[in-house]
């Protein structure tokens, strides 16, 4: 009897559990139903000549392993945040720190949710079951971050307000000048209709800068302020985000290796969306300086993105 499915036959090594559960499961392109939104056609991205089912997420998670991982992570993070809020540790933090970090964290929760919504589009329209799963797990992770960030922002600012209009996190997201370039970049990304472009705009340009920045900021500044809750939140988010950047890099390699013309398309998209992402980062670093920690975090983020671009064979946009 066969040991695996037919589409894995003839390979030197047997497929992993991740591959058996994730790869090769797309419906196919010969649609029986035709509507305005349609199902899956090759022309719903400008990226061409790619064997989409060759995509592999380096994290190799599937539902069972992901849910076990995140259930454990949520227990750990939840225990820390609960303790910090309920046992009075937050009260002991510097009031200025609480106000500034609470505003930033609450505002960023909305950005996480925006990223989740953008990735939902990728999940729906992309041409590979494996890419769809990576996008879907990222969507879930981003929701996790958004909910936890709001919870922690509430704790830092002394509790959630009764009405949406008075919600300090929402006010920050809608009005704080330091968050407006980020909101603009997220809103623009939500209007894109090529799922490949969404990956570039969101996961390469925006998350590629934002996530290393948050990691550095949360850990370094929180350590200085003895704020274990913020540090823990930052650490947990980064563990997830590192996976997201990892699948994004694998995606870039796949499409560039498939056809050199795709590199040009990716570069065009990068050049289009990178300025908004850089503006968002610069505004965050200027608006939430945390005694110079933010400037260093932004510099680290730029360096890390430059390395990822170079590894993918892409170039930094030339507008700066």
């Amino acid at each position, binding site marked *: 009897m066969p040991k695996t499915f037919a589409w894995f036959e003839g390979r030197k090594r047997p497929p992993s559990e991740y591959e058996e559960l994730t790869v090769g499961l797309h419906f*196919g392109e010969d649609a*029986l139903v035709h509507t305005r939104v349609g199902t899956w056609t090759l022309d719903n991205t400008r990226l061409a000549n790619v064997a989409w089912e060759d995509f592999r997420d380096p994290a190799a998670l599937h*539902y069972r392993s992901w849910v076990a991982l995140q259930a454990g992570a949520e227990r750990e993070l939840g225990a820390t945040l609960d303790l910090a809020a309920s046992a009075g540790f937050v009260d002991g933090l510097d009031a200025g720190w609480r106000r500034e970090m609470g505003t930033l964290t609450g505002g960023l929760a909305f950005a996480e949710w925006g990223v989740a919504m953008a990735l939902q589009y990728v999940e729906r329209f992309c041409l590979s079951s494996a890419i769809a799963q990576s996008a879907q797990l990222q969507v879930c992770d981003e929701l996790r971050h958004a909910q936890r960030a709001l919870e922690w922002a509430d704790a830092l600012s002394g509790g959630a307000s009764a009405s949406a209009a008075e919600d300090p996190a929402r006010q920050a997201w809608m009005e704080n000048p330091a968050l407006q370039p980020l909101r603009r970049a997220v809103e623009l990304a939500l209007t894109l209709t090529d799922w490949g472009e969404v990956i570039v705009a969101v996961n390469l340009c925006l998350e590629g800068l934002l996530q290393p920045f948050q990691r550095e900021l949360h850990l370094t500044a929180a350590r200085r302020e003895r704020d274990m809750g913020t540090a823990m939140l930052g650490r947990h988010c980064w563990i997830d985000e590192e996976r997201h950047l990892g699948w994004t890099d694998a995606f870039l390699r796949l499409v560039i290796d498939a056809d050199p013309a795709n590199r040009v398309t990716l570069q065009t998209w990068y050049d289009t969306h990178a300025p908004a992402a850089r503006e968002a980062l610069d505004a965050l670093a200027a608006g939430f300086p945390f005694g110079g920690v933010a400037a260093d975090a932004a510099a680290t983020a730029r360096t890390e993105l430059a390395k990822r671009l170079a590894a993918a064979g892409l170039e930094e946009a030339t507008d700066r």
Partner: protein
Amino acid sequence: MSNQTAEYTRTKRLYWEPSYVAKEAIYPPANYEGIHFSDWDRWDDPFHMSFKQYVEIQAKKDNGFHPARDAFDRYGGTDKMDPRWVEGMKVVYPILFHGEYGALRSHARVSRYAPAPALRAAAFYQSIDELRHSQNHVYQMRMFNRHTDGFANWAEWKRHHFLLQPAKMLFEDIVACENVFESVMGLNILVEVAYTNLVFVGIPSVGVLNGDLAGAGEFLTTQSDETRHMAIGQSTLRTLLEGDDRNLPVIQYWLDKWFWLLHRIIGCPLGVIPDYFAKRKALPMRQMFQRYIVDNYVAGMVEDLGKYGLQPPRFLDDAVAEMEDAPHTLFRTLFQYKHMLFNKMFVPTEADMEFFGEHYPHWEERHGAFWDEVRAGDPKDLPSLPMLCQVCQLPCVFPVPERPTIRGTEWGGEVRWFCSDGCQWIFEHEPERYSKAVGLDRVLTGKDVAQIREHMHLSGKLGGVLEEC
């Protein structure tokens, strides 16, 4: 405010009104065109789920289900299943996978574009549930594949085999809905409220009699999530009906349409499982249909929502009448294509016929002669595919092959053929949506059996007759 509600409220808080781009650019109204509602914020998710609760609950379920399946297989459970049941599961699992995978991609769009923030959040959890279900079905096929043929190339068959084209059509159709509320009506109401109890409760109760404890466990854990999905559908349906009278005709059309599609593509074919592939039987499909679909779904919905003007499904009477014959008609048809299948077929035994005679009063009169001729030596094999319905992609053989109710409609300069009034009615309401499908009967016109098998990715040994039954 409880912790659960506080956590849920955080997700609802995350919606914002965009100002750097037009709201319509992010949430295009075309995605819910024709649906009227004054305050989308009023819509509520009855489960108030948070991420933390979700992963905690689901990890517990997985920790129970997967080790049980592993133990079942390790201690020889798969080999001890009744062989007929295994042949039936070769068809069931790819169809279920189609459904779950279509649902996850469909609800990715609902959770992105639905106008109500709470519905978007609920659809978000449903989408990830569907990933769970689709992968659990793959786990089941992976287990079977180590013991028997007929599972190895299931993903190719679901794209290319005529037996799985109706499911491909049905779930592509749900994914392709332009209006997100049509997705919710089709999936959450018709698939989940109407049919999942039949599929995930009715069928495994028969499976257990035939040694399929792993399948029962898997269906049970799937159904535990479906309860939430049903609540999303029911809540949406009620909210829209209460919210604005103008929604009624739109919703009534969707419910009529999807009732017929589900009946035709899931209800009719599914009947061959409890009636034929189950050697040890429980309820006949006809009674299951009456209990789960007519008494539970239709009567429950009309009782609950009739006050808003909602009527029973337009083709309910046709569906009820068809269940007298549908499992038998389709089993006969499949038997005639046993040389083009990835599973094996068999001739009903004396015990089967006794069961049919007891539960289907017209069985002997309408189907008995076919099997008499088979027993007399006529293999009944057909050399080319039957005419397939333009909408549902099933053969035009209903209610019985000797008297099919074939309907035709001229569109685009040619006549399109349908298996029923229901499919014709759907086509005539949305011809652009359904007219471009090219059925495998047309793709494979003029091909011989070997060429048809090659097109459908069938290797040499697959199909044929199951000797041990």
